[in-house]
Every structure is written in structure tokens, then in C-alpha cells.
């Protein structure tokens, strides 16, 4: 049995990661920790892939957690639009957005939270 092929709750984050953004993510983790799947995929859409400065914020998220499996992914911000289009019904994706001026296509499969 492997892990990455299992069901995950998806939280995507776009824009600069902030303390407030971290708080929003933690709120969702607390919610998901009571649910069946027990796995969360946090995906960060970055301007510069490989720039790890956001991990300093992610540390606080990871340190709050003991019960969920958490996978942290990075993607280029250029991929966001395509990924939104490809999202399937029932994926229940949460997109946390902290970027003024970024137009996110309206999509009923994705719940958008503004920070």
C-alpha cells in the first residue's frame, strides 16, 4: 500500500504566505483531522519554484499537526488556471488566495477563501 495514491483533502494556496494565511490553513487542518481520510495535500503556487522561504511559515502548520498525513507540494503560479480547469467534481478543493489582482476563474468545484 502506498500513500500518495490515497484520498487527500486538497488545500491550495496562492500568493504570499502570511500569518493570517497560515491561520486559515490550520483551521482547515483542524476540520480535516476529524474526518475519515486523514490526509491533506497542501499545494503552494509560487512565483519561483524552489524558493523555500514559504517553508518558514509552513513550519507552524506542521508543528500543529500530529494526526494527519500531510503532503506539501509546490507548483508554478502559471499552472493554477489549468489546475482549476482540471479539478474534478467532488474534489472539494479549498483555494486560499492572498494576491491582489489575481483573477481566479469561478469554478463551483473550488471554494475560494480570500486572505
Amino acid at each position, binding site marked *: 500500500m502506498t500513500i500518495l495514491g490515497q484520498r487527500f483533502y486538497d488545500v491550495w494556496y496562492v500568493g504570499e504566505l502570511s500569518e493570517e494565511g497560515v491561520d486559515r490553513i490550520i483551521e482547515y487542518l483542524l476540520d480535516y483531522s476529524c474526518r475519515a481520510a486523514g490526509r491533506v495535500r497542501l499545494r503552494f503556487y509560487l512565483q519561483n519554484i524552489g524558493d523555500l522561504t514559504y517553508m518558514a511559515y509552513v513550519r507552524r502548520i506542521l508543528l500543529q499537526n500530529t*494526526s*494527519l*498525513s500531510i503532503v506539501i507540494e509546490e507548483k508554478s503560479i502559471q499552472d493554477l488556471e489549468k489546475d482549476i480547469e482540471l479539478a474534478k467534481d467532488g474534489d472539494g478543493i479549498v483555494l486560499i488566495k492572498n494576491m491582489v489582482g489575481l483573477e481566479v476563474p469561478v469554478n463551483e468545484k473550488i471554494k475560494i477563501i480570500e486572505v
Partner: protein
Amino acid sequence: MSSEKIDIILTTDRTMMSNHHGKEFLGFMATGPPIGMPEDLWMWIAAPKMKTDERGRPWQAPYALRKLEALLLDHGYNAAVIDPDYVDRYLLNAKILMLSHHDYFALCPPSSEWWIVTKREPVNARSFKKFMEKPAISEAKKRGLKIIVGGPSAWQWLYKIDLWSRWMVDTVVDGEGERIALDLVERVFNGEPLPRYVFVGPRDVPTIDEIPLIKYASINGLVEIMRGCPRGCRFCSVTLRSLRHIPLEKIEKEIVVNVEQGVKNGILHSEDVLLYGGRGLNLNPDALIKLHQVARKHLKEIAWSHASLAAIKNAEEKYNLISKIMEIVKSNGVQNYLGVEVGLETGSPKLARKIMPAKSLPYSAESWPQVVEDAFTIMHENNIIPAATLILGLPEETSEDLIQTAELIDRLRPYRSLIIPMFFVPMGVLKNKDWFTDVKITEEHIEVMRRCLWHSVYWAEDIINKFYLNKLAAAPLRFLLKTFLKYVKWKSRTVERKLGLTPIQAPATLIIK
């Protein structure tokens, strides 16, 4: 330069890839900086080079790497554990470099404590940095090598983001690796992107059937007999994982792997060896007797990795089990003692109740200091030599708690043991708490540390002479360590005089059975 290709290299730095002269406890010296001697000599004592074959495959390697190696070989991958000195020759063609470590950056106890006290970086962190700075690694990265790091100290990368970035580590895995390792390797082979970080939660730990058997020898013959722990101490990460008992036939197979490859001694690894085969915290004497009979059948010397003091007391008082096990251990006429690491943690019943309410079970948390003293008596009388750790700087710790700890250490003076204070590192349920190093070291902390020092110095020479290094072949090592002990005593007295501290004079009445 070898033309042999290995797709997945599993390795670590020298402080981990060493059998410490066959004396596991000497490995603790790798958690400190060199004291009173040159670094090369310190490294030779703490972590001598491992014997390898002509391909650079080490005779013995860390158990976690051996498990991963077995897993990958079982799934048809071309993987091997390679000694750090031989890694360069394989990097040219390798796809993945997998690393594991107990303490990558010396942030865990006791490294962190050495660092704070001496203000010098311990050799384990220095050795790991030296390894990662190899030009061959950065060159291989440019060619597409993927670096995946894991092990019990994987969390430390979250505090070293600059080095994570500098060394271009692709993925950090925190937690048991059997399931996720296969996922990650498959992604690399399929050319898919890797996640940046994976925390393996309790529901994704492997079942007994998913845990492979090692194929090659582990450091000092360590074999796992259990995973997880039911005691639920709030400062510990192991307790977050479910408890699994490895079947005896699997344990025996791994012992045989080690023995057949020339590792005649073995360490039974568990967070609490005496809980083996039991239900929760209830002991299973039959399972423990059988375990030790099997170990005795194959091994020249047996050691335990960890045992709880409450289980030691319970085992002896309820079943006379410590005496029975030690009869088995000594029955080959070669072994006359058994080493183990135990968690003393605190001398304060109040703190014990708060942070480790189940550690004293079946006895009450209020009786914790008595449990400790009784267990030390039992161990002393049975030639079990504990290296006891205690934690300083726990959340909610008060001066009164520390005074009680200091008093308990004084009461333990007659019992052969080492006592090692460790600074609190936020792990387990407490992992989001403030780090102790942000807190001021108080006078009470210093008093506890001084007591630990003098207790350990008092007993170390006895342990070295009569038990640990009493063979003729160990004479050079014995001489070096005794010289080191003399230096520590001299240095400590000098510092104490400078600080105007009075010498500690705890009674040390020997109890000889």
C-alpha cells in the same frame, strides 16, 4: 572509478555509518564537539570508519537504511547502502540519494545540550555538513539527482531552510518510511515531480507485513522487536504511532542475518523492551523469556535499546522476570552485564503526572521517584547498566520540580549508572511548544546538570574497567576514555571553583549482592 551503476544510493555521514568499535554507547560521543583532544582522535573514538567491501558497501549500516534497502530490493529496484567515503563513485549515474540521520543538525538531545554548554558545534552536525558539501553531490544535482532525506530528525530541516535550499534537497520525509518511500521512488522513475515535504500520519504507518526484513547487517546487530509505544508521554513522537510487535520468527531471521555476516552481538530495539508481546502495558513473561532464549541462542552479547523503569520494577516484583532474563543472558558464560537506555525524565511527581501520566504505570505518577529508585536497585543487583536520560526545560517546569530531580539524583548515587540531562526538544504532542533554548538556564538547571555530571563520572570508570571495555583488545580505547574522564573531572572542578560552587558530595554506598 567504478563503472557499476546504482540507481538509489542510501547513505549517511560518518557519525552514523560507524559501529563505534562495537560499543553502541560510544556513539554518544559523536553528539558532542571534541573535548580535550583533536577532532580526528575524537572521531576515531566516537565513529571509526566502517569496514566495507570493494564496492564501498559497509559491513554494518544503520538499521533504518537497511530496512529501506530491503524494501527497495524487494520491489526490484537497484538500490544499495553505500559508505559515505564511496558515494562519489556512484553519484554520476545515480537517480536518487536517500539520507537518514538521528540528528542532522545537532538540534536533538544530547547534541543540543553539548552545543549550549560548550558553545561549539557537535561533530555529528559538522560531519553531516562536510558530507553534504561534497562537490560530487552538487554536480550530480545539476545532472538531475534527486535527494530525499528522512529519519527521526527529519523535522530539523524545517529549522534549516537555508541549508535545505543550498543543498537542493528535493523531499523531506518525517515519519515511518516504508509506504512513502515506494511512492517517491516511483515518481522519480516516472519523471514526476516530488512533493517538498511529507509527514506520515498514524494511519499511514506500515503493517507488520509491510515491514521488510533486513538483508545485510545492521549497526551492532540492532533488530527491531516493536514499533510505537503505548505510554503516551507528551514529549515523545514515537507514541504518536500505533504499537506493533514484530513476530519472534521475524526477529530471529534478522538476528541470523547479522550473525551470518559476522555481527555476533545484538541490540533488541524497542521503546520499552519489557512490553514485548504484552497487551498494552501488561507484561507477557512467556514472550519475553522466549525472546531472550532466541537471542541467547544466536548472539554472543545481548543489549536492550530502551526499557521503562516502571516495567523493570513491575517485571521483577510481579514475576521475578528481570532475574530470570538475566539468568538467560548470563547463561553463555561470556556476558556478565546488559546495557540499556532508560527515561528518568524528572524527579517531580507533579511534572510526571502532567507530561507522562502513563510512564509510571502500573504504579501511580505520584510514586514516580520511588519507581525510579526501585528500578535502579533492581538493575544494579542484576548487572543491568542503565544510561538514564532526564529532561530539562519541560513546559510548566518549576524550581521545585528541579529541586526534586536533584534530590532524586542524589538518592541514585549508589547505583551503577550514567545519568544524562537533556534539554527539552518539542516533539510528540508538545512539538508546538517553545524551544527550551529560548529559555534561560537557571541555577536549578545547573545544579541538576552538575549532579548528573558527578554521578556519571563517578560510575563511568567502574563501568569502563569492569564491564564495558574490560577486554585486553580494548586497552587503547580504555586508556583514551580514562584520560578523557580525568580531563572532564579537572575541567569541571576548575569551572566550579571559578563559579564559586561547592563540590557535590552525595553518599555513594555501594550495594553489592
